[in-house]
């Protein structure tokens, strides 16, 4: 019996010639990631265990991105723990405010992840790098601590669900709509413990930014990882950002998949996930009349340049509706700079939107746009759980940058078509 893409990558990293779903393996990792929330816990464990040197100073990335720039004294102290640890251990990939970004947008941009890598991160959206043909998955702080010391971690080898993509996305439809559509279909535990593997000729028609959004939300279907077959676009992205050698893995023809879904990208419509689960999806035609108080365009799902371009295309020459707060958060300093050079930030500001330095901020209800009781927000983020963006009686509707921007203009949840574009 053959192996899936994921199983092949894992096999090469644990010295096995063959793996099956369910095997427990001890596996080498190419990169270990942590942020300002999870790393202090990992460092505490690391010190408690009396560990000294890290396994490899180049293979650890520490990104203070959640409550930064430090929102309060406690956050400042958490970040200080990170900073001091990075200095003490000589960790090369520590990204300070001013050079940082939201971790999952930052790492690919810095060339730290390439196809064929095994990456673990103490953050659930570490699965984002599957867009590059890497195996990457979220773990906890203790996993992170152990891997920083040993360069290894344990995995249960996942089974897989295959998504065969065909066709091409319509205007104003993006990777975000694809993944919301899929989660609506298979539910939030539809891929529990499994890999979601994306193949088919439709993959070629997706931009890298679309693929990052899709892989990013694999965890919202319960998946261990989401991974795309590598094509010329992936290779161009990797060689344009990294000098690391990479390796392309394809699933065996007789690889075993628990389920397979055929998805025609041309049929997908702008999709919105209603509170309080990402699986509560409706197409834009069925949303009804929902008035909103806030719009967030950003996060590791949709804070990339293409997302900002789409939002700017819609907001250009228009105004954010009175009474609506629209906050745009470029995901990294580079994206911020590119958006500035392209004139996108000017468009946002002229439209009456606020533009923030890169941060996770409101995505997890940290800062920079918290909701009051009874308020509703459209956000390009990835979770709409109870209290995720603020008060437990506030509501988050997940959508694409196009829907978010159009909604900012009308003050209700709408697609760009409503604006006659």
């Amino acid at each position, binding site marked *: 019996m053959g192996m899936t893409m994921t199983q092949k990558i894992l096999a090469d990293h644990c010295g096995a010639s063959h793996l099956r779903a369910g095997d*427990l393996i001890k596996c080498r990792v190419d990169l270990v990631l942590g942020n300002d*929330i*999870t790393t*202090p*816990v990992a460092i*505490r*464990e*690391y010190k*408690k*265990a*009396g*560990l000294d040197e890290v396994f490899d100073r180049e293979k650890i990335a520490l990104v203070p991105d*959640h*409550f930064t720039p430090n*929102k*309060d004294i*406690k*956050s400042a102290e*958490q970040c200080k723990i990170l900073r001091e640890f990075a200095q003490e251990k000589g960790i090369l990939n520590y990204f300070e405010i001013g050079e940082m970004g939201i971790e999952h947008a930052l790492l690919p941009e810095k060339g730290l992840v390439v196809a064929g890598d095994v990456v673990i*991160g*103490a*953050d*659930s959206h*570490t699965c984002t790098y599957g867009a590059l043909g890497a195996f990457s998955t*979220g*773990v*906890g*702080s*203790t*996993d992170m*601590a*152990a891997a920083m*010391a*040993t360069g290894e971690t*344990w995995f249960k080898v996942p089974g897989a669900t295959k998504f065969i993509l065909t066709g091409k996305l319509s205007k104003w439809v993006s990777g975000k709509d694809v993944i919301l559509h899929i989660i609506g279909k298979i539910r*939030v*535990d539809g891929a*529990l*413990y499994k890999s979601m593997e994306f193949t088919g000729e439709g993959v070629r028609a997706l931009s890298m930014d679309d693929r990052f959004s899709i892989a990013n939300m694999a*965890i919202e279907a*319960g998946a*261990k990882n989401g991974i795309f077959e590598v094509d010329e676009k992936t290779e161009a992205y990797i060689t344009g950002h990294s000098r690391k050698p990479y390796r392309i893995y394809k699933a065996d023809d007789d690889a075993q998949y628990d389920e397979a879904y055929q998805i025609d990208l041309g049929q997908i419509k702008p999709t919105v996930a209603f509170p309080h*689960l990402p699986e509560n999806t409706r197409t834009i035609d069925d949303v009804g009349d929902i008035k909103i108080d806030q719009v967030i365009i950003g996060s590791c799902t949709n804070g990339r340049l293409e997302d900002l371009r789409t939002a700017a295309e819609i907001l250009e020459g228009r105004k954010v509706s009175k009474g609506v707060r629209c906050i745009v958060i470029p995901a990294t300093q580079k994206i911020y700079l590119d958006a500035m050079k392209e004139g996108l930030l000017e468009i946002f500001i002229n439209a009456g939107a606020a533009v923030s330095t890169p941060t996770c901020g409101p995505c*997890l*209800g*940290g800062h920079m746009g918290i909701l009051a009781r009874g308020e509703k927000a459209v956000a390009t983020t990835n*979770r709409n*759980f*109870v*209290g*995720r963006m603020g008060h*437990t009686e506030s509501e988050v509707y997940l959508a694409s940058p196009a829907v978010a921007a159009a909604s900012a203009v009308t003050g209700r949840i709408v697609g760009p078509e409503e604006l006659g574009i």
Partner: protein
Amino acid sequence: MNKVKGKAIKYGDNIDTDVIIPARHLNSSDPAELALHCMEDIDRDFVSKVQPGDIMAAGKNFGCGSSREHAPIAIKASGISCVIAETFARIFYRNAINIGLPIVECPEAAREITEGDAVEVDFDSGEITNVTKGKTYKSTPFPEFMKKLMASNGLMNYIKDYRPE
């Protein structure tokens, strides 16, 4: 730690880490402080009603959402001795094991437990007994690898044992 017994506190499906421990409290990683806010967004009474040794039971996909280890840490620090669920979200599952919070996947037992039941869990045999309802269930005991990991009281002690000098 081979056997625990306690009163059940019951929740539904898809209990996510944002309600187990809301992000606004993540600027601390102190277990005692996290325990003060455990479950507060879904059950304001949890903190006042939980007794040391109590057992948490829940439906499908328990612990979905973020990778925050603060979630199992908060539950453990609140005194819960074991979580029984129909299924667990995978990162929560590994975090719980890594920090030494016992968890058991058993759909039948999880479904039939109601709030207040006296429940007993034997980790060696994988047997769960609902004393109140007089019913016993079988769950798959942990594989050897994980038993060892749990016997060393979590991952960090385990790697100390095996890390080459």
